[in-house]
């Protein structure tokens, strides 16, 4: 339940050490750089936009080249590789990458070039194939397609739609003899013909041919450089060209494949430039004079002395710390134990604590796991979740990245809580033990494992009461958190007016409700409350209600408005009512898991007879429960979040802060490993 104390840090250093100092800070990753000092005549910010642009360009080229490479050669990745985290790389390798830098950039460019070459050549093959298709009908023609005639003759080469016979064509042209007609080829769609006539009759012949819808072959053939060759020869050339283009493609693909072994260099280039880009962004925010530069930013108090010692021992510089100013937008850095830490992300996705707010993670985590478990409430499912997550955590304990580790841990704790509630309410994959026992082993002494407390299906009202009771505890905890926060802000009036009065109102209200027979009848519980207690509760209820009306509108000076606001605040009790009812989802979702599980078991048991029975039974059980687990785990996750965000946070927490984003190494594939704890930065 804590946030780390942050303070300002200033580092005054010589420009000649700039690179080394920044790289050291980046590897330590404990300082969030912010520009806090104004520029003046001596100190100014330098323009790094050109360098940044270059790096951004390189990053995008490398990204593209990696994805292209992945298109041609799939990288073999196991499903679990996401858990394995980034590879570690010694600092020496990082330092020695400078020599490989240029060639790797060129390789990335070459890969992009190759993909273009491949695409262009594929288009070329397509174009050539179209030409072959156009030429194929003319393959029997032994003169070039662009033949126009001789000194005394005129030739027409072209197509007529639909099949024609030689006689039909001669018939049409009979009056313009002498002429020669050849049919080159006939298909259903067209007839390719060659007509040769004397020069003086060419116009008439052309007119008749036009009447028969004669068309010249498509222009593209005419314009070929090889148009003077006969179609057969042209076809041969085209086939050769296609072969050549295809071999070009193959060569490009081969070259691409040869880069597969360099994939790691590309990945490293991406990381390397990402780190450099981040460094340049920081450089752009520094103020510098001719020989000196100043870094300003935030650091956690606990990290300060270590970084100060390291910096001053290595460089000639001055490090200074200062308390954050009042108007500073101080970044938030959590400090929680291993149990609550996984839920920092959940708080962040609502909103990190604003200035002066407390970190709700610790208190929230207690309820989070419990509520999740109660909604899923099946020991079998919980066991599966917990064991899977624990397996991942143990197997990859050395390399797993923090966010993934936290996710797994969160679900592991959720799973453990689910096992707990599952045992309390005796739900093991629905009622699998009973069904298997009854169906296959003839067990009559049911249930095999009785619940520690009760079956929610049999006593839904008791479960509802229990759910709402948990809700009341949750909400009152939220209210207590508000009190704690007000105490931290030293707003003692607020504690009395906004917290204690409400506590009195709510608790006396609950006592009053429980003293009514109608309510206890509905809930199916018996409560013995003495008459004195009821009277006391009644008085307290009335008094606290009046107190709330009088005090909760205190920010208004005008008395009438103040009372109205107070009344409106008292109306907020209806909000508590709906908040408490909202916890009925614990019952509904818990029952849903159990009942659907039993349905699956029952369906499976219907098939259990015969030799294949047990096999079909197993298949149905596995598939059915996998589905049920998936859907209900999703529901439990979503609604746990809702109960935390809406009901719990609604009582005390607003958020609006900013997460601490230290200047560090935010790479995708590699992390830099230091060989000694401090040092190795030359």
């Amino acid at each position, binding site marked *: 339940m804590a946030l780390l104390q942050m303070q300002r840090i200033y580092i005054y250093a010589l420009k000649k050490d700039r690179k080394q100092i920044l790289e050291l800070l980046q590897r330590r990753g404990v300082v969030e750089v912010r520009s806090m000092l104004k520029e003046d005549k001596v100190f100014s910010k330098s323009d790094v936009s050109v360098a940044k642009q270059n790096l951004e360009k390189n990053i995008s080229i490398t990204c593209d080249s990696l994805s292209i490479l992945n298109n041609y050669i799939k990288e073999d990745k196991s499903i679990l590789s996401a858990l394995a985290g980034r590879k570690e790389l010694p600092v020496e390798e990082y330092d020695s990458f400078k020599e490989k830098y240029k060639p790797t950039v060129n390789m990335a460019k070459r890969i992009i070039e190759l993909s273009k070459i491949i695409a262009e050549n594929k288009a070329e093959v397509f174009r050539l194939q179209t030409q072959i298709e156009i030429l194929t009908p003319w393959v029997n023609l032994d003169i070039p397609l662009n033949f126009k005639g001789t000194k005394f003759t005129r030739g027409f080469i072209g197509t007529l739609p639909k099949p024609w016979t030689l006689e039909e064509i001669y018939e049409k042209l009979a009056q313009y003899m002498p002429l020669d007609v050849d049919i080159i080829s006939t298909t259903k769609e067209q007839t390719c013909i060659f007509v040769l006539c004397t020069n003086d009759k060419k116009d008439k012949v052309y007119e008749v041919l036009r009447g028969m819808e004669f068309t010249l072959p498509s222009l593209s053939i005419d314009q070929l450089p090889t148009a003077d060759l006969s179609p057969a020869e042209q076809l041969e050339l085209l086939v050769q060209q296609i072969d050549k283009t295809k071999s070009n493609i193959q060569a490009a693909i081969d070259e691409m494949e040869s880069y597969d072994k360099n994939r790691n260099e590309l990945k490293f280039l991406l990381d390397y430039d990402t780190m450099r880009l981040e460094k340049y962004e920081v450089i752009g925010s520094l103020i510098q004079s001719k020989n000196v530069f100043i870094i300003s930013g935030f650091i956690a108090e606990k990290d300060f002395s270590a970084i100060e010692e390291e910096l001053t021992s290595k460089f000639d510089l001055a490090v200074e710390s200062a308390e954050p100013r009042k108007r500073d937008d101080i970044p938030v850095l959590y400090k929680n134990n291993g149990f609550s830490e996984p839920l920092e992300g959940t708080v962040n996705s609502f909103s990190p604590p604003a200035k002066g707010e407390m970190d709700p993670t610790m208190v929230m985590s207690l309820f989070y796991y419990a509520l999740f478990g109660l909604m899923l409430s099946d020991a079998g499912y919980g066991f599966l979740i917990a064991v899977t997550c624990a397996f991942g955590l143990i197997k990859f304990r050395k390399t797993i990245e923090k966010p993934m580790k936290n996710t797994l841990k969160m679900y592991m704790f959720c799973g453990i809580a689910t096992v707990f509630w599952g045992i309390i309410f005796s739900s093991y994959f629905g009622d699998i033990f009973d069904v298997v026992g009854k169906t296959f082993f003839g067990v009559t002494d049911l249930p095999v494992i009785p619940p520690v407390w009760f079956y929610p299906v049999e006593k839904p009202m008791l479960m509802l009461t229990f759910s709402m009771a948990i809700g009341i505890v949750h909400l009152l905890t939220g209210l207590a958190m508000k009190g704690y926060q007000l105490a931290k802000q030293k707003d003692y009036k607020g504690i009395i007016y906004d917290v204690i009065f409400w506590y009195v109102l709510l608790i006396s209200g609950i006592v009053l409700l429980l003293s009514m027979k109608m309510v206890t009848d509905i809930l199916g519980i018996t409560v013995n409350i003495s008459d004195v207690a009821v009277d006391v509760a009644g008085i307290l209820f009335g008094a606290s209600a009046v107190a709330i009306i009088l005090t909760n509108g205190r920010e208004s000076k005008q008395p009438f408005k103040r009372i109205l606001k107070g009344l409106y605040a008292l109306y907020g009790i209806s909000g508590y009512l709906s908040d408490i009812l909202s916890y009925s989802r614990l019952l509904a979702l818990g*029952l849903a898991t159990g009942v659907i599980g039993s349905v699956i078991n029952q369906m499976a048991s219907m098939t259990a007879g015969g030799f294949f029975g047990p096999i079909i039974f197993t298949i149905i059980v596995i598939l059915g429960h996998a589905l049920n687990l998936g859907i209900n785990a999703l529901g439990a996750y979503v609604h746990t979040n*809702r109960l935390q965000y809406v009901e719990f946070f609604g009582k005390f927490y607003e958020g609006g802060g900013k997460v601490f984003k230290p200047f560090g190494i935010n790479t995708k594939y590699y992390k830099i490993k230091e060989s000694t704890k401090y040092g190795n930065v030359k």
Partner: protein
Amino acid sequence: MEMLNDYGIVLALAGAVLAALIPGIASAKAVSMGGIAGAGVITEDPSQFGKVLILQLLPGTQGIYGLLIAFITLSQIGVLGGNGDISLVKGALYLAACLPIIIVGYTSAIRQANASVASIGVVAKRPDQFGKAMIFPAMVETYAILALLISMLAVNGVSGLNI
């Protein structure tokens, strides 16, 4: 009147079947709305698949709640083995008990799908705001859960009545 009592089981079964049918139809439509919106996001940014899938699935629960009520009812009225002897009044009561999840399940699934689609839009533009985006559809679901609760209590209650 005695003869009419033979039809009690018909009313009860109608309630059970409608509980599976109507919210099921609505959830199918609702999930498909989410799927259509989600597919658009995935074409741009495949890495958001997990988040979009969760948002798509949220309005799918109404169908499951309906199924749940249908199953409880079926087992109570003896259709899944047992004695199907149910008076006309009792049958009608079962039908009435199923009504909350039938009606609220239908409308809330569609409304929740609208919220889901909007939230998918949020994730497309601001993937880091997934936590908040998820809450909007979940708010709508509250009412389906309340309806489920009442239907469940009512079906259980009716089975205990001696009429």
